[in-house]
């Protein structure tokens, strides 16, 4: 069992402070101290490399789903050559079950802005874009206001805090496409194109926006940077699970009494998290959990004993932390319906660029619809599993994997329910 002490945890990204989204309130609560420190306190911060090292040793694992060490990612940027370099902040959160970054935009946009500015300084970035999904119109306005306030205070723009560091910061609104949360697809969308993922290599650090070095970080990931600079890497890595440390914004939805976003240390037991969210609705029994967004493999209630919300623990039962957007399902949930709806989502959102995903996502959905309608046969289940293997690992980006995993794992973990829904015989006569 985990020993994470979440009961005494005080939120840092989303603390309980009224009007924190206002820049003056944020400053009064220690805001922009971290930025000022890295820019002006030469004793503590011996240039951009020192910032990268600090962030690297904090081991902020990317909160967008992939879980890659942010500082390490930053270190992949080639040396500055005087040309433009970009930081693209990923605020596209569109994975079903995920609704955490909007809380930062709403309640504490400056912690993100400050983190992004520090990242920009560390990587010698010249322009920052934050890509926010178009549906978040309300939050886009909030972030734009916050950025304007920071410009007015001189925290963004030329010679910030009198240093020779200058950077611009813009918001780019999406317009309805899940795929734009995929980092290279996001770059294409930023460049004004259809959101088709790019073939890698070249990686964005080499050729990103407009062919220039670019780093892409999730909004929550960048928000943590502020805390790491203020409190040190050790503080951060001391919170929560050792291999996946730090505070996490857990988004809890589905059949719980108090759904919402909770900021808590990583590595909280899954079952505790359900209790934190008020427990199961209407006193029903827990049936299953999707731990980190719709693409992460579903877990049956009987798999959850002792499992904690961090990548290592979830891997032991065949799942992932993803975005930590946990979807809770009670005993009345129709798993066949749920899987069909997830497949419908990926079919709808496949960009259509490459074959296995464009064709496979539709095929999966259509077979599942047939099964859901009671017209399926048991052999269709095996066909579904076969199709997932034809998609996985064969595409340009990970959307095909994201579409295939739920199908594979949900069928494997709830096969009896699927079979019960299928016709009894292959050639049943009405």
């Amino acid at each position, binding site marked *: 069992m985990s020993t994470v002490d979440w009961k005494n945890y005080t939120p840092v990204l989303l603390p309980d402070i009224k009007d924190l989204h206002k820049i003056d309130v944020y400053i009064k609560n220690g805001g922009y101290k971290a930025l000022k420190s890295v820019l002006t306190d030469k004793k503590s911060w011996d240039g951009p490399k020192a910032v990268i090292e600090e962030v690297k040793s904090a081991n902020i694992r990317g909160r967008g789903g992939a879980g890659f060490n942010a500082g390490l990612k930053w270190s992949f940027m080639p040396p500055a050559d005087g040309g433009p370099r970009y930081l693209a902040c990923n605020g596209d959160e569109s994975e079903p079950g995920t609704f955490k970054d909007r809380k930062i935009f709403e309640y504490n946009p400056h912690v993100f802005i400050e983190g992004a500015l520090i990242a920009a300084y560390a990587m010698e970035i010249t322009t920052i874009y934050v890509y926010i999904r178009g549906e978040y119109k309300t939050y886009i306005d909030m972030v734009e206001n916050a950025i304007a306030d920071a410009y007015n205070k001189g925290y963004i723009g030329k010679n910030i805090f009198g240093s020779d560091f200058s950077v611009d910061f813009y918001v780019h609104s999406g317009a309805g*496409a899940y795929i734009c949360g995929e980092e290279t697809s996001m770059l294409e969308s930023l460049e004004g194109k*259809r959101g088709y993922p790019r*073939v890698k290599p070249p990686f964005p650090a080499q050729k990103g926006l407009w062919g220039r070095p670019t780093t892409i970080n999730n909004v929550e990931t960048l928000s943590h940077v502020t805390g790491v600079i203020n409190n040190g890497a050790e503080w951060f890595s001391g919170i929560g699970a050792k291999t996946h440390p730090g505070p996490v914004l857990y988004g809890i939805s589905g059949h719980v009494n108090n759904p919402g976003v909770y900021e808590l240390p990583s590595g909280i037991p899954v079952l505790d998290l359900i209790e934190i969210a008020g427990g199961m609705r209407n006193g029903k029994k827990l049936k299953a959990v999707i731990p980190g967004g719709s693409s992460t493999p579903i877990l049956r209630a009987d798999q959850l004993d002792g499992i904690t919300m961090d990548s290592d623990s979830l891997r032991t039962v065949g799942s992932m932390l993803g975005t930590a957007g946990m979807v809770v399902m009670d005993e009345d949930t129709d798993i066949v319906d749920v899987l069909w709806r997830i497949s419908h989502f990926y*079919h*709808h*959102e*496949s*960009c*259509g*660029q*490459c*074959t*296995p995903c*464009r*064709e*496979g*996502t*539709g*095929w999966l959905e*259509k*077979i599942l*619809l*047939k099964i859901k309608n009671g017209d399926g046969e048991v052999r269709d289940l095996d*066909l579904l599993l*076969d199709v997932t*293997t*034809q*998609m996985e*690992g*064969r*595409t*340009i980006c990970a959307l095909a994997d994201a579409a295939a995993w739920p199908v594979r794992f949900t069928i494997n973990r709830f096969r009896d329910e699927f079979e019960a829904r299928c016709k009894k015989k292959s050639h049943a006569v009405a």
Partner: protein
Amino acid sequence: MPEIFIDGHRYEFEGDHKVLQFIQDLGKEVPFFCYHPSMTAPANCRQCMVKAGQYMKDRETGEYEVDENGERVIRWFPKLQTSCNLMAADGMVILTQETDELVQRAQKDNLELILINHPLDCPICDQAGECPLQIQTYKYGPEGSRFEVKKVHKPKRIQLGPRVVLDAERCINCTRCTRFTQEISKTDQLTITSRGDKNYPTTAPGREFDDPYSLNTVDICPVGALTSADFRFKARVWEMNQTPSIDITNGKGTNIDLWTRDNLILRVTPRFNAEVNDHWMPDAGREAYKIFNENRISRPQQKLDGEQILSSWNNAIATLSEEIAATDNSKIVVIASPHASVEENYALSKYTNLLGLNQPVFTPHIEEGTGDDFLLSDDVAPNANGCRLLGFTELDKASIKKEIKKAELVVILHDNLIDREVIAADDLKEKFVVVFATNNSDTSKAADLVIPITTAAEHAASYVNVDGRIQRTYRAKETKYTERRLDLEMSEGRLDRYGTNFDNWVTEDNKIDCLPVWKFINRISEHSGLECNFNDGREIMDEIASTLDSFTGVSYAAMDEQAGIQLSIKKETSTSK
């Protein structure tokens, strides 16, 4: 030198190579759809999957690492790789479908997915027979389909533009067509619209796909999604014979293929030549197939009481000989042609030389505004540089007119001088006019004697393009006097090889009564007691090469081997834009 190991064989390489292209260049195969050597590689069809790995080298010694069994240690990429965008690297190990079951499986899986929403309407599809999807499916695809649900429906029979028709259901979204308009023709007229499995290529709403190079998208479409409005449903590919040729409608000398059935040219497609036109050709040149079939002059014609009537070859020869004999040499003007081949011009000039006439003159055919910095030049004749290299006197319009004015006998070789407004019909009044022509025109109508000659599709002859490259045509079409079964150079089609006598080339109707210029010269010189004995274009070119310095080293064999030969031309005479 860096080395790469493909299916267990070792190859050396230098420079940058994409693995797929490298394998193709070796004459081996990996199936693919979206890759095109002249465009960016989006790796979107996912068909060219290979297993890739790297022999591990000891960093210090540079030697390959070996395991306890003495085998080299390979670090495989975690996933299969698309070979189209995978760069060859030293010590790379590649397994294709030839040697690896996983690769075979992946390619088969991918084809099954490509085909689930494809209409499988090969029996009514123009592309059948030359369809990469059809071919790869037969070779590498699954035997059946497990797709038992509804296919996606998309627009069909959409006239995208004047020359291109779209069937979106056949489209496999390789984006070759959209990339073509973005990267090659640069008109940006096409885009993919919609998303996911509803994707298909289209123009902006209400806009026509009238790109002057639009038909190249039909050529590169790996399925039957884009078809030619003109060629649609005209012939099955396997019924036609394919013969290499040169586009004679422009001075650029684009390399083409002529597609023949029943002695008619049915379509023109570009043929790769890295030095001239890469894989492409302008739409304008594709219309040219009609000039080989339609409005042809068959049998010599002579004017009698102001009316042209059909004549005979003997009459024509006798008439011309008599006119030449009756006219003072100084009153004869022979106008050679940038529209005729080097061999035709040479044969004519040799004859006039034997007669003791002045060297022929010619005037280039420039149409300002035709050129486009790509595959069209303002010079719309295929062989102006050929005339120059033969040493003919180049005259402007006014000077040609002046020459004609002085003359009593005017001989015009294959050049519609009236139609292209170099001269007016009135300029030829009161003169005896002989025109060598392929098609009826205002110029041929003004002639007292019309000698029907072969087109570029009916003779093997050479043309020197605006950049000085000499390239040649092949016989694609029979005349009344040729027999393709005896002609080793004429291409064979599938029906020639596998069909019965009744399957192909069954009609005599489409054979024109015409002669190559040199054959006519043979006969008229014989009639006049002169000696010209031209057998075919090949021999004429050998003669030219041995007598004229500007053609040294040129031969059909050399042109065939090197896809044309670059001759040295004076740059200022080139009208290449």
